[in-house]
């Protein structure tokens, strides 16, 4: 592997460290190549900072299926803002139609399963991304 390929492989880690120590510019070189790196001040505007999205996901609250059954949509639009306790779908378990309720305030993800498909006990049906 060349010096440049090595560096590119390690780029996510390098960027992470730069952010950690608030370093905006880096330039590196050896006999075979050179790299100059400038990163933006705001991590939210930096799509190349791969570490950020997983961190956001951790904050998402999963909405679990209350039972094994058939999932039914509740006609909510994608990314609709919901409040904790709001009914976001249903699970039909035999003769029962059980409500699936939001477990936090925030933006509701699209349903993870299709309308009318089987879901298991405590399967994740939605995620709620916190407001703001």
């Amino acid at each position, binding site marked *: 592997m060349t010096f440049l390929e090595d560096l590119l492989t390690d780029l996510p880690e390098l960027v992470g460290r730069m952010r950690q120590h608030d370093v905006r510019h880096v330039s590196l070189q050896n006999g075979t190549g050179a790299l100059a790196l400038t990163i933006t001040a705001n991590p939210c505007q930096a799509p190349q900072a791969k570490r950020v999205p997983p961190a956001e996901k951790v904050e998402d609250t999963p909405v679990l299926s209350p039972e*094994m*059954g*058939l999932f039914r949509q509740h006609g909510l639009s994608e990314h609709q803002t919901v409040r904790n306790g709001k009914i976001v779908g249903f699970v039909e*378990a*035999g003769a029962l139609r059980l409500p699936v309720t939001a477990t936090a305030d925030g933006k509701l993800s699209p349903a993870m399963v299709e309308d009318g498909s*089987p879901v*298991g*006990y*405590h*399967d994740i049906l939605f995620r709620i991304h916190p407001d703001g």
Partner: protein
Amino acid sequence: MRDPRRVLIANRGEIALRITRACRLLGLHSIGIHSEADASLAHLRLVDETICIGPAAASHSYLDAARVLRAAELTNADIIHPGYGFLSENADFAEAVEHSGRILAGPTAAIMRLMGDKISAKQQMRRSGVPCLPGTENALPTDLSEAQTICDAIGYPLIVKAAGGGGGRGMRVVMTAADLRDAIETAREEAGRAFGNPSVYAERFLQHPRHIEIQVLADRQGNAVWLGARDCSIQRRHQKLIEEAPAIGIDPQAIAELGERCAKACTLMGYTGAGTFEFLYEDGAFSFIEMNTRLQVEHPVTEMTTGIDIVCEQLLIAMGKPLSFTQADIRTEGHAIECRINAEDPESFRPAPGKVVNWRAPGGPGVRVDTHLYDGYVVPPNYDSLIAKLIVHGRDRTDALNRMHAALSEMQITGIATTTPLHLRLMNEPGVREGSVSVHYLEALMRKSAP
């Protein structure tokens, strides 16, 4: 109805993996169910679909007939394979499966009921010419003096047993006539509490019997075969630890006659699927104790000696196919032994759940391991402690014992306590080397070596 090809595996652990393998071999669509505690079970990576049916507690997952049936509906399963334990011998479940238009890999609910009740099972066996212990034809009358007259006629020692029971509960050994009344009363109370059925019956008590059993297979066309005998005498508290096939030191002709009678009994009652007739053997005589209307933990020793894949045959029978062989085609070869590896303290037998840090399977000629273990697997505390079955096949019993010893010493399970050290020790015990021990052998040995 379309061809039944979708199999729901209503079990967990090693047996769920065993059934999955059979499904894959036959090209059937397999559906794995699991509790919330079992999402990382090994067979779930191999099945075609999975569904979580409930929380960790078995009563709300694997033992909950309504949930298992709902899973079968949601996944469009045609066949339900119950494995062993859980719902495998539950006649109400079998009936519900039948009513839902699905097929249970096993006998009908009516047969399960017939054989599940010890009294009606014994009556059926007597009718079919299968040998039984001298004992009561029916439940003992509630009137104690009437019961006393009947029991005096059977003779002592005798054993009072729960009609609806098993596993040693609702059982009392009566050595003399004077102890009878107390024994009946306590057995009734225990049976009522444990099985919801206080009926008890009495039969002659054998002092030093061996546990010998006959494996059968019966199809829906009325064909039935027996696949040889197993000796499962090494037990602790009615739980088998080591099983082997064939049963040594018994006239093969006597076993063949018994096997024929068992196969005939299957045909007579209309039995379908795999099953096991269990007997006590003492002084050259077999006495029927019960029939297990399901696959058994120890089925691999019969598979090793006959070369027949019992689980595949179960599935083919459930699909309505006739047996592809007759009794004349069945040969048994060599000797097979199975050691049950439990996640238990080898001295106290206390369950030892936890994380398996390292798992190294033994190998070599004639070695088979049926297990759901892998590095990092966490044995949950919610279920049975069986984590692996180590099975060996040798040209004769000595060869098999040597292979078992070598395989046990090669096998590595770190992180949790297992019964492996006990098995290693047993492989060198003179009683085990010689064979033909009674069902009391292991407990007597443990008592002798207790500090």
